[in-house]
C-alpha cells in the first residue's frame, strides 16, 4: 500500500486522536492507564515518522518537497492545507517522534496526579510541533506555531515544580505570543503584496524578485519574522523567558521547549522568503550567535542550580546553530541543521538524567550533591557520555556539528566572521568546563548532604530503556553522520549557494 500522500496527515492525526481518546478515558489514581495509552500513541507516531527516511527520495532535486499533500482549505483568503517534507524537516519530524515516547517514559513515575491532563496536553504539544514542521502554507504554519504555545503553557502552569510556575508559564507565553502578533501583521502584509500564503510560491517569488515592495518595507517584514522566531529559539539577548521556563517545566516537556521550532522556522521562512534580507542581517546574527555561545557558557559556569545550568547550556547550544546557519556556507548550514538534531538529543538526554536525579533526591542544587559515582555507576556513565557528546568529543555527534559550523564560519564571506569564530571557539572551551565541572561536583568528591540523607538507587530497567537510545544515537550520528547529511545537504546546499552576487553586493555596501 502506498500512502506517501497521506502519511503526513496520518502523523498529525495519530497524536491528535490519541489526545482525544486519553481525554475521554476515566481517570483513576494509582493506575498507569493514561501513561500506557500515551506510550502506545507516541510509539505508533514514531513508527509512522520512520516511514519518511525509509521512503525518502535522496536524489530529488534540491529545494523540492516530498510526501506532499495539497488541498483547498479556505477560498478567500487563499489558504491551503499544504503539507510537505524536505531534507530540513524530515529528520526534525523523526526526532520529534523519537523524543515523545522517551518523554512518556520519563514522566512514568513523576506524574501521579492529573495524569490524564498531562498526557493529553503532551500529545497536543506533539501535534503542534509536528504541524510546524510539515506545514508548507504560511497560514497553516502560523496556526500550528501559535497552537504549540498553549499546551506548553498549561503544562508549565499545572505541573511546574515550584510556586513560581504560574509566573513562568505566563512569561513563556507572553514572550512568544507578542512577537508572533507582529509576525501575523507581517504575514498579512506579505499576503496583501503577493496574494499567496503558499511557501514554495513565495520562495519562487522571492528568488526571482517578484515581490513588489520597497526594500525598507521588505526588510521590516523580514525582521518581524526573524524576531518572532528568535524569541522562540531563543537568540541572545531574547532569552529572558528561558531560565524560569526550563526550571519549572516537567522533564517530558522541557525536552522540546527550546531550539528546534524557532531554528527550523528561521531556516524555512526567514531564509526561504527573505533570502536577501537574511544576508543583510547575517553579520549581526553571527555576532549574536557567538556572543550567545560565550555568554551562555559563562553564565552556566556560575549557576548553582542544575536546571538553570542546563537552561544556559541550551542557550549556548542553540547559539551555535544560529552562528552556523547565518554563515551562509554549505558547511555552516548543513552543520547547523545537524546541530539542531544534536542539540535536541543531548539536551533531552541531559534533562532526562537531571529528572532522574531529582526523582531520587528532590533537589537541583549542585551543592547538595557529591560523590554519587560510587552509588550510581550506570547513571554516572550515562552522564559522562552525554557530557562528552555535548562538549563535542570526536566520534560523538556533537563534534560533527560543531566542527562543520566552525569551519563554515571560518570560510564565510560575512564581515567580521573571523573574530566571531574565535569568540565561538573559546565558547567551546567554556562549554567543556562547565559540563565537566558539574559532573565533578555532582558525582565525585565526598558524599554530599542530600545523598547522605536519602538512599537513591541506580538506573531501573525503564530508565535504561530511556537512556540507551540516546547513547546509541550519539555514537551512530558521530561516526555515520552521512546517513543524515545526505538529506540535509539537499536543503543546505541551495540555501548557502543562493545569491553570491547579492551577497558580495551586500558586503561591499557594508564595507563602504
Amino acid at each position: 500500500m502506498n500512502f506517501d500522500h497521506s502519511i503526513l496527515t496520518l502523523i498529525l492525526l495519530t497524536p491528535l486522536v490519541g489526545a482525544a481518546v486519553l481525554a475521554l478515558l476515566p481517570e483513576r489514581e494509582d493506575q498507569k492507564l493514561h501513561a500506557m495509552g500515551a506510550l502506545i500513541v507516541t510509539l505508533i507516531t514514531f513508527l509512522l515518522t520512520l516511514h519518511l527516511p525509509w521512503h525518502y527520495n535522496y536524489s530529488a532535486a534540491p529545494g523540492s518537497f516530498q510526501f506532499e499533500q495539497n488541498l483547498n482549505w479556505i477560498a478567500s483568503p487563499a489558504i491551503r492545507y499544504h503539507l510537505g517534507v524536505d531534507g530540513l524537516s524530515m529528520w526534525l519530524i523523526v526526532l520529534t517522534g523519537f523524543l515523545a515516547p522517551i518523554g512518556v517514559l520519563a514522566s512514568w513515575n513523576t506524574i501521579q496526579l492529573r495524569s490524564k491532563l498531562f498526557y493529553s496536553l503532551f500529545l497536543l504539544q506533539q501535534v503542534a510541533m509536528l504541524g510546524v514542521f510539515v506545514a508548507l502554507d504560511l497560514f497553516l504554519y502560523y496556526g500550528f506555531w501559535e497552537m504549540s504555545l498553549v499546551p506548553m503553557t498549561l503544562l508549565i502552569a499545572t505541573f511546574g515544580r515550584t510556586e513560581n510556575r504560574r509566573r513562568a508559564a505566563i512569561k513563556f507565553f507572553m514572550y512568544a505570543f507578542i512577537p508572533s502578533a507582529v509576525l501575523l501583521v507581517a504575514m498579512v502584509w506579505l499576503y496583501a503584496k503577493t496574494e499567496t500564503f503558499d511557501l514554495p510560491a513565495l520562495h519562487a517569488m522571492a528568488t526571482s524578485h517578484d515581490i513588489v515592495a520597497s526594500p525598507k518595507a521588505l526588510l521590516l517584514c523580514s525582521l518581524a519574522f526573524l524576531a518572532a522566531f528568535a524569541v522562540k529559539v531563543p537568540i541572545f539577548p531574547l532569552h529572558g523567558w528561558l531560565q524560569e521556563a526550563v526550571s519549572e517545566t516537567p522533564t517530558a516537556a522541557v525536552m522540546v521547549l527550546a531550539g528546534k521550532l524557532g531554528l527550523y522556522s528561521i531556516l524555512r521562512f526567514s531564509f526561504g522568503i527573505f533570502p536577501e534580507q537574511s544576508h543583510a542581517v547575517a553579520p549581526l546574527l553571527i555576532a549574536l550567535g557567538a556572543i550567545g555561545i560565550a555568554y551562555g557558557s559563562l553564565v552556566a559556569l556560575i549557576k548553582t542550580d542544575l536546571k538553570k545550568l542546563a537552561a544556559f547550556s541550551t542557550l549556548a547550544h542553540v547559539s551555535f546553530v544560529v552562528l552556523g546557519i547565518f554563515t551562509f556556507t554549505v558547511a555552516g548550514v548543513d552543520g547547523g541543521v545537524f546541530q539542531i538534531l544534536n542539540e535536541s538529543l543531548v539536551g533531552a538526554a541531559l534533562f532526562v538524567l537531571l529528572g532522574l536525579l531529582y526523582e531520587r533526591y528532590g533537589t537541583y542544587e549542585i551543592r547538595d550533591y557529591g560523590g554519587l559515582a560510587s552509588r550510581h555507576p550506570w547513571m554516572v556513565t550515562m552522564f559522562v557520555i552525554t557530557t562528552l557528546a555535548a562538549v563535542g568529543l570526536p566520534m560523538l555527534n556533537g563534534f560533527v556539528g560543531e566542527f562543520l559550523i566552525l569551519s563554515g564560519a571560518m570560510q564565510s564571506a560575512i564581515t567580521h566572521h573571523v573574530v566571531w569564530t574565535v569568540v565561538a571557539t573559546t565558547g567551546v572551551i567554556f562549554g567543556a568546563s562547565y559540563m565537566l565541572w558539574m559532573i565533578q561536583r555532582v558525582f565525585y568528591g565526598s558524599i554530599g548532604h542530600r545523598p547522605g540523607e536519602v538512599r537513591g538507587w541506580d538506573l531501573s530497567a525503564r530508565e535504561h530503556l530511556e537512556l540507551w537510545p540516546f547513547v546509541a544515537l550519539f555514537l551512530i550520528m558521530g561516526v555515520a553522520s552521512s546517513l543524515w547529511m545526505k538529506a540535509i545537504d539537499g536543503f543546505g546546499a541551495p540555501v548557502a549557494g543562493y545569491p553570491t552576487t547579492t551577497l558580495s553586493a551586500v558586503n561591499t555596501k557594508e564595507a563602504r
Partner: protein
Amino acid sequence: MSTNLLTLLPELVLTITGVLVMVLEPMIPAGQSRKPLGWLAILGALLSGAAAFYQLHIVNATGTQTGFYGSIQVDAFSIFFHLLIASVVLVTLLGSLDYFESPVTHAGEYFALGLFGATGMMFMTSSVELLMVFIGLEISSISTYILAGFRKGRATASESSIKYFLTGSFATAFFLYGIALCYGATGSTGIAAISAGLPAAMATKPLLAYLAVGMVVIGLGFKVSAAPFHVWTPDVYQGAPAPVVGMMSTAPKAAAFAVLLRFLFNGTPLLRDHWILLIEILAVASMCIGNLGALRQHDVKRLLAYSSIAHAGYLLVAFTGTQANAVSGAMFYTAAYAAMNVGAFLVLTQLSGFSERVRSLEDFTGIALKRPGLSALLGFFLLSLIGIPFTGGFFGKFYVFAGAVHNGHVTLAIIGLLNSGVACFYYLRLLAAMYSRPLTDSVSYVPARKVTVPAALALAATVLATLGLGVLPNKLVHLVERAVPVTATVTTPSVQ
C-alpha cells in the same frame, strides 16, 4: 409593497411568542416552575430562526425585499444578523432554562424580555431608516435594562440596571440628536436618502454633516461599549446575571454594529475619510483601555467586561478596511465573538449558579480539579478570546486585521495585535489559576450540580460554533461575502 409583512416575519414571531409568555405567566400558580414558559420561548426563538431562513429563501429567489414604505429592508445582510441574534437568544434561553435555583415567580418575564429584546435588535438590523433604527434600539435597550437587574434584592443588580439605564438613555439621546442633525443636513432620515443628500449638504453646511455623523457614531459607540463611552460596562456586567451578560455583550452589540456598518458604508461613504479617523481613535482607545483595564481586574465578570470593550475595539479596526473587507470582516468577527463570549458566560453560569458566589480569580483557583469538563470548556473559550489558531476568535482577528493591512493601516494592525498580546496575559491568568492547585477552600462554593441537558446543548452549540468557525470558516465567509454588496450600493428606488 407598502406593508410587506414578510419583511418583519422573525420579529413578528418573537413578539407573538413573547406576548404569549406574558399572558400565560399569571396562569401558572405562584411557586411552580416556570420552565414550560422557557420552552415556549425557546420554541419562539427557533421559529424566528426558521422565519429568517424562509426570508433567505425568498431573497434568494426574488431579490431584496422592502416593506413599510422602504423603511424596512430584508437582504442577505439583515438576514445574517437575524440568524445571529436568533441563535444567541436561543442558546442563552437554553442555557438559562435551569438557571433559577428555586422557582422564581417572575421567571416568566425573563423569557419574555429575552424575546422582546431580540425583536428590537432584529428590527435594528433590517431598518434602513434611522428613526426605525431608533425604535428598535429602544425596544432592545428597555428589555436589557430590566434583564440586567434581574437578580432582585442585590445591590449590585440594582446598580447594574440603573447604570445601564442612565447611560443607555444618555446614549440614545446622542443617537437621536444625530438623527435630527442628519435630517437637518440632508432633509431625510432614510439611509439611502442621506447618502443622496450628502453632497449638497457638504457644499452648504459641512459642519452640520460632520456633527450628525459624529453624534450617530457616538450614540452607537455607547451601545457597543467602545472607549471612551465604555464606563458603564464593568459595573453593569458585574451585577447582571451571567447568562444575560452573555447575551447583552453580543446580540445588542451585533445589532449596533450592523447599524453602524449600514450607516457609515451605505449612508455616508462620502465622508469616509473623516469618519475613518474617528473610528480609528475609538478603536485604539477601546483596545488599549479595555486590555489595560482588564489587567487589574480580580472579578472574572469585570475582567470579561473589559475584554468585551477591547473586542469592540478590534471590531472597529475592521471598519478601516476597504468596503468589502470591512463589512465581511466585521460580520465574521461579530459571529465569532458571539459564539465564544456567549459560551464563556454560559460556563460561568454553570460554575457559579444563580447565587454567583464564584466570582474572583481566587475563587477560580483550582476549579479544574472539581469541574474538569466545564473548566476545559472555559479554557477553550478563553483561548478563542486570545485568538489562538483553530478557533473562531483567531479567524475573526485575522480577517479584521487583514482588512486593515490591505487598506494600508499597518500601524493600526500592529497596535491591535500588540494589544491582543497584552490581552493574553489576563486571559492566561484566569486560565492558569483554574489549572493550579487550589489555594483556599473557595472551590467548595462551586455548586456540584450536574449540567442539565438543555444547558449541555447550549454549551455544545457554542463550542461547535467556535471550533467550526476556526477550522472551517469557509461556510460563513461565503454567507458574509454575499452580504457585502448590500452595503455598497444604494438600493432605494426613490433616489434614482
